[in-house]
């Protein structure tokens, strides 16, 4: 019930002429609808955050109307001008007289209550929501007023030369749409997956329209802030040994290799791995570059003394494990902003790539057996 009202209210906020313009602009099926049909998980909708891509990704609504009404562009945008309203009022009056004749009553004394009763009699509706039932009302009391007010306001602004197209956009980068469970909690009723997907579609559609910042409060009610990722990093406090030199430890893993590092702030820049010098342990340039990567990135190449121990894996994965260990150990020496830059450089994420398993019926993970025709 509330869900329907919510859907209807989002519909209501679209004025028809904008809807037609939007339908003309983005034709056919789009990526968003394709993903939705493939039954992917709902995080897809949460990734639609950029204002620039919103128009492309919002799905076509009311496709059949576009197909049947061909001359929309020629007709021009529907304007709720005074003549339009007058025409609607005339049509309403004529319809009222026809209805009175049909019901066998006097057209002159046909009140609104009589109209409602006749419509309910002629079009029996099994729907519960009053707004969903067929209605026949005088135009002045109903849908046109809000749209007409918007039009009048725009004309006034145009007269004063204040009508600009570059309205401010709602900033959506750090937030996500409500999840299905959260929406259910908010509306205090259960929603089907289709309803939820429809809701997200409509909200995205709303955001693709101009002047959506007017309804920012409405939109923000259905969004939650995403937490800043760098706050999830666990930074160990700095430790001091008996000579007052600061040190910290870190460990890292890559594929099957594990490495630990003891970073000391002594200022000589020597590196020993499993007791041997790093030049002898890693004869390949690429591995030594990987060890230097976090230090060079932060600009502290000659500052730290490192004692590393590593086991397992091959030379590349050992270098990767040590790189992660060094980055983690360095965190204690760095400020918040530097931690964030290190994270964005990809130094603090453990690499999840492992050897892909061999599948039955194939020779390896991907290689199939030789295909024989017979």
């Amino acid at each position, binding site marked *: 019930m509330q869900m329907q009202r919510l859907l209807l209210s989002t519909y209501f906020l679209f004025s028809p002429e904008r809807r037609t313009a939007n339908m003309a602009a983005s034709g056919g099926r789009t990526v968003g609808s394709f993903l939705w049909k493939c039954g992917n998980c709902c995080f897809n909708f949460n990734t639609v955050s*950029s204002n620039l891509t919103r128009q492309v990704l919002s799905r076509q609504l009311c496709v059949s109307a576009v197909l049947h009404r061909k001359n929309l562009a020629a007709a021009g945008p529907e304007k709720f001008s005074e003549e339009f309203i007058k025409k609607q009022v005339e049509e309403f009056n004529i319809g009222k007289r026809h209805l009175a004749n049909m019901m066998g009553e006097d057209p002159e004394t046909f009140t609104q209550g009589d109209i409602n009763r006749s419509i309910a009699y002629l079009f029996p509706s099994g729907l519960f929501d009053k707004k969903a039932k067929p209605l026949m009302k005088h135009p002045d009391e109903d849908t046109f007023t809000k749209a007409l007010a918007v039009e009048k306001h725009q004309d006034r602004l145009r007269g004063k030369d204040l009508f600009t197209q570059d309205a401010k956009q709602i900033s959506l980068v750090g937030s996500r749409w409500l999840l299905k469970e959260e929406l259910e909690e908010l509306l205090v009723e259960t929603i089907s997956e289709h309803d939820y997907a429809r809701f997200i579609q409509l909200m995205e559609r709303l955001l693709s329209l101009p002047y959506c910042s007017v309804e920012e409060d409405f939109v923000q009610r259905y969004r939650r802030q995403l937490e*800043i990722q760098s706050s999830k990093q666990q930074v160990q406090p700095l430790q001091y040994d008996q000579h007052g030199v600061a040190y910290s430890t870190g460990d890292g893993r890559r594929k099957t290799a594990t490495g630990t590092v003891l970073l000391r702030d002594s200022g000589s820049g020597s590196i020993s791995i499993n007791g041997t010098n790093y030049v002898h342990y890693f004869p390949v340039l690429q591995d030594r570059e990987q060890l230097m990567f976090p230090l060079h990135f932060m600009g502290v190449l000659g500052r730290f003394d490192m004692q590393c121990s590593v086991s397992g894996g091959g030379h590349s994965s050992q270098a990767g494990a040590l790189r992660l260990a060094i980055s983690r150990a360095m965190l204690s020496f760095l400020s918040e902003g530097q931690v964030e830059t290190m994270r964005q*450089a990809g130094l603090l994420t453990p690499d999840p790539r492992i050897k892909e398993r061999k599948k039955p019926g194939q020779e390896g993970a991907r290689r199939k057996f030789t295909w024989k025709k017979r």
Partner: protein
Amino acid sequence: MAASLTGLLKPWTPRVLLVRWSRYNPYYLEPEPRKEVYHIPETELTPEQKEERELKSVRPIKAATNSVTSSVFNDPVLSKFVNMMMKDGDKIIAKGIITQTLENMKRKQVEKYHKAPEGKKAEIECNPYAIFHQALENCKPVIGLASIQKGGKFYQVPIPLTDNRRRFLAMKWMITECRDNKHRRTLMYEKLSQELLAAFSKEGNVVKRKHELHKMAESNRAYAHYRWW
């Protein structure tokens, strides 16, 4: 509710196993290992860059690969070339060949530089990385051909190529040329440096192959409307 978000931060296997998938959830963003990007002050950023920065602060980032560093000598194009030249996962040999090639190119160019008269010295390019990039640029085709079936016959239709495809073709031609068309006693780095220097001055077999492709595309212009994308 938080369960579905933590599900995005773990090593991942998609529900339907696609052919080209990775252990990272698509929610993860690519890392940016270059130092200079992070030293631009706030005022000089465009709105798109600002939005990108805000997005990066809330999304998890993938780990940087093994071949990527923040050093000035790290070149993505060169890394791609090394990977393409690599056989059976032996990157040490491939990287060694490339290093020898660059050294060889530098030697030849410096020799030419010292032998040149005073007026011509400024025109000789001695930086091997610059030569490599320019040579690769000269080998990139602008238009490609695709085999399209229409009415029972296969036609070679000219199609536009993406940047990645062009770079791939240039590198592939260079490597196959150096592997096939050489005397059995010339070493790979020797042949490769010869070809790169030739491509730098727009001569040589690879540039010839590119021109041939262009001529084929030009001659098949009539079929261009067979392309529907």
